[in-house]
């Protein structure tokens, strides 16, 4: 057509580019209408914030503790909801298996400890520490991701698992910097809690924490759910499906994956700052691999890729684990069953503590879920399609960029 080489990327702006020529060749299509998700999100979270504390006043919930107990529990559950929706970006959307997610949670927590405790003497307000914690966690996410995101998926899993172990190990062993096993204590609690008419932040009043975490989750939800249907969200799915094809469509796979990693890490950072401020202490043992695996179990069971499902899954699992198992103990203990011996193993249902079986139950749930309903309890439409695909098509998803399967020698 033209014999004039142009420099720089063609945006089709200056001369009749391909898009203009297409428009000439074709008739115009229908217009795109954006959905208003944000309003829905705000309304939903406001409803949740009002309904949850009310519901627990009713039986059967009212039998299991005061309203304040429940609300405090919800605030703790919120930490895991936040962690789960962050991990969902990495695992559910971008398809990168991150097994060391607790590391970013730890980094967020320690950032708060450095920024707002007698240990360093700094007392930066909680509200400023939130973005700082998110940013520091994201930086570490990128530092880890930059060299490793080129790796095949399952290598990445191992590297992140290793990172998830290194971070608490560093916090444990670099004791001049972190006070070692004892951790950093006496962290500042957030202030200006009267804003919402819910009283002061403190150990005895869970309401401000509940409102705060609800707010953080709502904001995270709004921002993240918008990403799902954006250019970036499509790029994540494309990379998950076929990395070489995605790169050949102009997607910078490294940067895009890094962004997923950074966004996931920053969400964990937020959760870390919040959790540190709530507990008022950080110590290395809060962040071992069980945290990473618990959050992963929440994401998988809730339904990878569906942000609402993941949040619901995290909430349900947390409540089951913190309330359900305890109640099961009381219930079974009241039945008065006899004990019996199985070789080295003694089983006594009456004194059995179901809280100890938490990870057995997670394990069983993970295995059964993968076998029977791999898309999770509340699946995303696309993930369901993917997980039920035909055997011969399943092979295609994992091809490395450097080793494309179409070498022809």
């Amino acid at each position, binding site marked *: 057509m033209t014999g004039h080489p142009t420099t720089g990327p063609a945006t089709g702006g200056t001369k009749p580019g391909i898009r203009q020529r297409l428009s000439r060749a074709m008739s115009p299509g229908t217009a795109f209408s954006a959905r208003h998700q944000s309003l829905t999100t705000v309304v939903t979270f406001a409803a949740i914030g009002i309904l949850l504390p009310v519901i627990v006043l009713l039986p059967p919930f009212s039998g299991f503790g005061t309203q304040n107990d429940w609300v405090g529990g919800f605030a703790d559950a919120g930490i895991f909801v936040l962690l789960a929706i962050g991990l969902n970006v990495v695992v559910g959307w971008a398809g990168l298996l991150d097994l060391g997610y607790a590391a970013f949670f730890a980094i967020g927590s320690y950032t708060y400890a450095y920024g707002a405790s007698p240990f360093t003497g700094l007392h930066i307000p909680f509200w400023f520490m939130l973005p700082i914690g998110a940013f520091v966690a994201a930086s570490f996410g990128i530092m880890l991701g930059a060299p490793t995101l080129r790796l095949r998926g399952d290598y990445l899993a191992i590297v992140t698992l290793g990172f998830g*172990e290194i971070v608490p190990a560093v916090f444990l062993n670099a004791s001049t910097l972190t006070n070692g096993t004892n951790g950093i204590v006496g962290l500042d609690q957030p202030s200006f809690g009267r804003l919402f008419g819910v009283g002061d932040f403190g150990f005895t009043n869970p309401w401000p924490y509940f409102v705060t975490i609800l707010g953080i989750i709502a904001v995270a939800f709004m921002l993240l759910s918008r990403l799902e249907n954006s250019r970036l969200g499509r790029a994540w799915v494309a990379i998950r499906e076929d990395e070489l094809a995605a790169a050949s469509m102009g997607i910078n796979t490294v940067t895009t994956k890094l962004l997923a990693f950074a966004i996931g890490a920053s969400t964990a950072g937020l959760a870390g700052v919040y959790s540190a401020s709530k507990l008022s202490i950080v110590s290395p043992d809060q962040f071992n691999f069980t945290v990473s695996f618990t959050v992963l179990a929440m994401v998988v069971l809730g339904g990878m890729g569906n942000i609402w499902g993941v949040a619901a899954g995290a909430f349900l699992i947390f409540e089951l684990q913190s309330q359900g198992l305890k109640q099961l103990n009381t219930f079974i203990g009241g039945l008065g069953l006899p004990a019996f011996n199985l070789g080295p193993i003694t089983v006594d249902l009456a004194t059995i503590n179901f809280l100890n079986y938490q990870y057995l139950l*997670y394990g069983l749930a993970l295995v059964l879920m993968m076998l029977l309903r791999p898309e999770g309890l509340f699946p995303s439409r696309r993930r369901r399609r993917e997980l039920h695909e035909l055997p011969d098509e399943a092979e295609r998803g*994992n091809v490395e960029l450097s080793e494309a399967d179409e070498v022809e020698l």
Partner: protein
Amino acid sequence: MTPATAPLGRVRLSAGRWNVAVGTIAALVAAYVIIDLGAGGEGQAQFINALTIGAIYALIALGYTMVYGIIELINFAHGDVFMVGSFVSWWLLTTLGFNGAITDPLLLGVVLAVGFVFSMGVMGIVGMVIERFAYRPLRSAPRLAPLITAIGVSFILQNLVQVGVSNSIVTTPQIIPNTTLHIGPISISAINLFIIVLAVVLMAALQLFIGRTRLGRAMRSTAIDRDAAQLMGVDINTTIALTFFIGSGLAGAAGVVQGLYFGVSVFTLGFYAGLFAFTAAVLGGIGNTTGAALGGFIIGFIQVIAAVYGYGVWSEVVVFTALVLVLVFRPTGILGQQLGERA
């Protein structure tokens, strides 16, 4: 995985065989000097200690590498299979009523043989059961799915031992007498010698099995191209089950060795051991059995060197940093990725 990787790997492999041999010897000498400088007089003991720990990692790493080689799955439960293996040997020895060194060599031999065969057999079967119920149904699913069930199985094994047996440390009877043998200038305690010899024998047997037998050939062909192997009449399910049996059996043997050497077991043992052994498998080149053994010894040396210089608590950081560096700079590991190619 892709046909493209095979020729590339092979080119590297054939060129490097002598280099590997020379490099290994050079590295051993260097490691000895480094350890000796740090350990001040106990160099030899620490060197042997490193070899022993390395042998344990190597035995575990073999299972990782074989399973990865054949179905491209990181078997997260493998470390816990090792842990259960150590508990099985603990159970057997305490049930049989041993609580100290056995001085009668004949009885010792019989007990060890029974202990190893029993533990390896039980763990082999456990491995096959895990494969049958947790991995086989997902063989054609996206790769995330079996990886997640593997994590689930790992949870289950750990928790079963924790609540069913003990949620703290159990003490395994030290049935091998604490005698030191003097072979020329080398002083080596009986247990170290036993473990190193056992590991070498098991690894050699594995290499022979993979390289020289019909079933071994079936394993290699399945690893290279499952569909083609199936078309050539290889029973894929049996072959994969066999791989799990052997891999888990070796982990079971490592479990017994762990109990005998350290005298203690705990339900969380499998997590770190598994992670270190996987690192070993990746270091050596995943899917490559010789590489896994080599990687295991390297990890053993890293740990001991870190310990003798007073950085014992940093050893996991060092190992994982090594893992990240290897994966970034040479993802195919030291020897490249081939299952059984070298046998």
